[in-house]
């Protein structure tokens, strides 16, 4: 059996309300909540980045179950905001946990690099190359001030340790679907990404998620009613509900893992953190479907069954996702600009 052995998430303390962002940019303050389904988003502190979030998430996973560094054979870190353009985040993670013999690499695939990391580690464990591997999705995503992404681009991350012993959630199947669809991109040297506006919807998000979810359910011989929980990538609060409805899932199946209305889009952290929120409450036998989406564009889908081992995992040893969401300190737009290093200084 190959699957999740332990997991942990980290969401920064700071939040900005989307109505505050709308106030600055002259939009209707109710627009972000009504139009995008986002009330607030998480903001990294001045001294936080994708690497510090990755470390905190992994430490939370290790608080629940300690896996010694020498047993960790693989480390993949998925992010589109790695602190360095050249110099891996994964080597920092290896140093922090003392996993000096790990196969370590950084991944980037817009919002799906975290689930791509999970698939890589899953494959290496299944192939017998490693006993345990770390997969992290983490981001401090960038949105250009005044752009639609300013309302959603946020920060957070989740770490999974995948192995074959004492598995709390078995990964039964995983599939991917990918096409060259340029719905969102950031060119080398550019500070902020660009996007295709509404083009990010139908031919990108919906097409890839629906195709991957259907491929997975066909492979697993399942249908929507077989799942207790479903997590879809969540660039806003509305798309996951809409794609769920089109696939035949109910709001109740989606709710526990739908975090964007409160913390925004954590990009590579989004689907992994939604899954983490589900694992916080899951019971043995629960079946979970998780489908990510990364612009550019592709989706990774996972069919997961929670095992009896979850009762033995000390889930209270680290803060749960919804507890972290509810622990929030609100800041205004000026503080947000300062935290995100967006103030242009004139000396």
């Amino acid at each position: 059996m190959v699957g999740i052995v332990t997991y942990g998430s980290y969401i920064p303390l700071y939040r900005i309300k989307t109505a505050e962002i709308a106030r600055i940019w002259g939009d209707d303050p109710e627009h972000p909540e009504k139009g995008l389904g986002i009330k607030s988003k998480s903001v990294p502190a001045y001294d936080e980045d994708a690497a510090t979030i990755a470390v905190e998430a992994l430490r939370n996973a290790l608080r629940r179950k300690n896996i010694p560094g020498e047993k960790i054979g693989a480390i993949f870190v998925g992010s589109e905001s790695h602190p360095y353009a050249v110099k891996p985040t994964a080597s920092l993670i290896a140093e922090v946990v003392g996993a000096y013999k790990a196969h370590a690499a950084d991944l980037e695939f817009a919002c799906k690099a975290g689930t791509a990391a999970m698939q890589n580690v899953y494959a290496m464990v299944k192939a017998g190359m490693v006993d345990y591997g770390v997969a992290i999705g983490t981001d401090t995503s960038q949105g250009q001030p005044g752009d639609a992404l300013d309302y959603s681009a946020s920060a957070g991350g989740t770490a999974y340790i995948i192995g074959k012993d004492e598995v709390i959630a078995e990964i039964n199947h995983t599939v991917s679907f990918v096409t060259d669809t340029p719905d969102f991109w950031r060119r080398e040297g550019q500070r902020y990404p660009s996007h295709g506006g509404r083009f990010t919807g139908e031919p990108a998000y919906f097409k890839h998620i629906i195709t991957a979810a259907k491929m997975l359910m066909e492979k697993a011989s399942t249908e929507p009613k077989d799942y207790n929980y479903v997590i879809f990538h969540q660039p806003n609060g509305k798309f996951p509900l809409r794609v769920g409805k089109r696939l035949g899932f109910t709001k109740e199946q989606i709710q526990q893992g739908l975090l964007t209305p409160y913390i925004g889009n954590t990009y590579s952290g989004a689907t992994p953190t939604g899954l983490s929120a589900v694992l916080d409450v899951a019971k043995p036998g629960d079946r979970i479907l998780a489908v990510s989406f990364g612009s550019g564009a592709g989706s990774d889908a996972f069919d997961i069954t929670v095992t009896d081992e979850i009762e033995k995992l000390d889930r209270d040893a680290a803060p749960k996702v919804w507890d972290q969401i509810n622990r929030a300190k609100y800041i205004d737009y000026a503080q947000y600009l300062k935290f995100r290093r967006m103030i242009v200084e004139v000396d």
Partner: protein
Amino acid sequence: MVVPRFWRERRSRYSLIGTKCPVCGTVYFPPRSVCPKCGRKSVGKMEEVQLSGKGKVYSYTIVHQNVIGYKYQKPYVMAIIETPEGPKLTGQIVDVEPEKVHIGMPVHAVFRRIAEDGKAGIIQYGYKFVPDEE
């Protein structure tokens, strides 16, 4: 900033690795290769020990006149943290309103950016502290 100097200290800065004297049991942070109390008896015998990251505020100050690189964080709190293992660590307390910090406040270590060598240089990571959940 000299890259090798920071590189040499990375394990203690990232993971709070100190040393313990096997003769008298005293824990040191930053790590020492010789116990000043036991001298020659401890040479070559010092053991690595990882601090738990837990602690209490022993003393603190609120910095309003920042050092270079900390302008965006002022006012910020610098504190001496007393650890249950023994050593007292100097570190910043973050994610807190400075006026809420008090002596005896329970805190724990978190992983943060400490400094960076301009826009093109290396980023130094290490420990800071946040208040424990109430």
